[in-house]
């Protein structure tokens, strides 16, 4: 069981650990983003190509000439942040009245739908499997070694295979998101469904509670912090799976496709790829926060889960 290391899979509150308030964390995070932006533009200020007036092309008037020329800081490798923001409001194709932002957000929502379906399916499958494993020693011995071994192999390598096996369709992407979700959920729930207080189990036994009653009233509630820890990991994993299925797998309409397309046109418009990646990152964070919100709502009565 080497996969279960020390501490870090165990849910714990960030505040208790780091002794720093929520408000200060948010402030620090904002400050960090500001510093990052300043650093980014600072590098370009020192070693980029000549800065031109906003919205003008390569022939526009030069407003600043950086003293150095670093390849890393060129407009191709590191576009100006304002240009990335501006490109969001430009048409995504010549002559189209759909902006890049609308186009990418559409794709992101499409990807999210696929990921979310797979995520929900995977969570239920994982829960069902873990339930079976904690109630049957034989099933546990037969299958759990494989579930654990799955954590040591790059199971995402299967993604293109699945797209070819099930066709370039939504179904393939959903399947990928499902299996990327159910592995972490199963592993966490095998632990979680056994994390009850043994004294509480004796109490249930003293009531002659049935296996089902014990499950619903003790095992499941005790396992919820573990479930949410796994779900937060799986939320991102399901989106990664969807993107890999769509992009290299060749499913149209999703973020993966948009990333591949804009990557092909990177030379003419690097800002579009950057903007897409920005929105992809935001999608991941939004999905994570959604699960985190559910967690806070579900576990709000428990002292350890309220923060973090």
């Amino acid at each position, binding site marked *: *069981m*080497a*996969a279960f*290391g*020390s*501490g*870090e899979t165990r849910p714990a509150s*960030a505040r208790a*650990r*780091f*002794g*720093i308030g929520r408000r*200060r*964390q948010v402030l*620090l*995070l904002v400050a*960090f983003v500001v510093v990052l932006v300043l650093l980014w533009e600072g590098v370009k200020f020192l070693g980029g190509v000549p800065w031109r007036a906003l919205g003008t092309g390569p022939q526009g008037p030069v407003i600043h000439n950086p003293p150095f020329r670093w390849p*890393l800081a060129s407009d*191709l*490798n590191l576009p100006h942040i304002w240009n990335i923001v501006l490109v969001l409001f430009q048409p995504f194709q010549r002559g189209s009245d759909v902006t890049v932002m609308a186009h990418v957000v559409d794709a992101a929502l499409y990807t999210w739908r696929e990921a979310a379906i797979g995520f929900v399916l995977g969570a239920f499958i994982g829960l069902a499997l873990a339930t079976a494993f904690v109630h049957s020693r*034989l099933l546990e*011995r*037969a*299958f759990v070694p*494989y579930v654990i*071994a799955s954590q*040591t*192999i*790059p199971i*995402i*390598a*299967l993604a*293109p*295979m699945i797209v*070819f*096996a099930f066709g370039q369709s939504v179904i393939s992407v959903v399947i990928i998101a499902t299996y990327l979700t159910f592995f972490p959920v199963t592993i966490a729930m095998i632990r979680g469904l056994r994390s009850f207080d043994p004294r509480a189990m004796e109490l249930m036994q003293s009531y002659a509670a049935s296996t089902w009653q014990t499950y619903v009233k003790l095992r499941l509630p005790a396992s919820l912090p573990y479930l949410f820890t796994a779900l*937060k*990991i799986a939320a*991102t994993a399901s*989106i*990664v799976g969807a*993107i*890999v299925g769509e*992009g*290299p797998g060749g499913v149209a309409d999703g*973020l993966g496709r948009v*990333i*591949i397309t804009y*990557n092909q046109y*990177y030379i003419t418009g*690097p800002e579009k*790829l950057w903007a897409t*990646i920005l929105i*992809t*990152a935001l*999608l*991941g*964070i939004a*999905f994570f*926060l959604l699960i985190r919100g559910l967690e806070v709502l579900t576990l709000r009565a428990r002292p350890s889960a309220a923060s973090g």
Partner: protein
Amino acid sequence: MTMPGFASTLGRLWYYLPALLVAVGTLVAWEVVVGALSIKAFIFPQPSAIFSALQANWASPQFPLFASAQATLLEAAGGLIIGTGAGILVAFATSRWATTRGLLLPIAVAANAVPIIAFAPLFNNWFGVLAPLSKMMMAAVLVFFPVMANVTRGLTQVDPAALELMRSYAAGEGTILRKVRIPNALPYFFTALKLATTLSLIGAIVGEYFGGASAVLGRVIVQSASALRFDVTWAAILLAAATGIAFYLATAALERIVIPWHASLRATET
């Protein structure tokens, strides 16, 4: 511990018997069913066909499996070293100040929520789509955050009584770091490292999915699949899995050597 070696080996064999049966049963059923139906055989080739593809393409010019696995492992290992090194450095540099720790945790959480894989095309553009460095950097970024977060935790989540004990000896910060914080962080570090081996392979392979030199596992998987050579695809996937397991086991072995006290501690916990 009380069981003599032979009996305990037998006991472990008995314990894993059902798992072995499942593996053998799956392989047999796969072989028989695919053989009997032979309809979708080209997508799910028989295990025997996969093994012969593995043999035939071990060093074939079109799908050189062995060289590809080597190249991918090199990218993953390079990424693992870069990402782990950077993670440890940042953890050490920042773990002394509560403010930076309070900042790093939410950043690590946010970074974990971001599908970092989406950055693969950028790395390809920056470091060269054909250069192994672009895959290494992809792997390194994936590895960095869990290592950084876990080492920070290990360095800071020390039993307060142990710190008080060191204070009673009038020990300096350097001594406390060497005698308490670093040993305390080692189990956390190895937990992250075991996670990181898998992540580094994922980073390398997915980076390859988004384009790269042809003799790497990710390219072989995509190209053989689009050429409808699914026996080769499965052979490559098998090789990726074997690489992952070997990588992981090597890390776990290293852990047993470096922190034997922790492994025995865990064995008694269950």
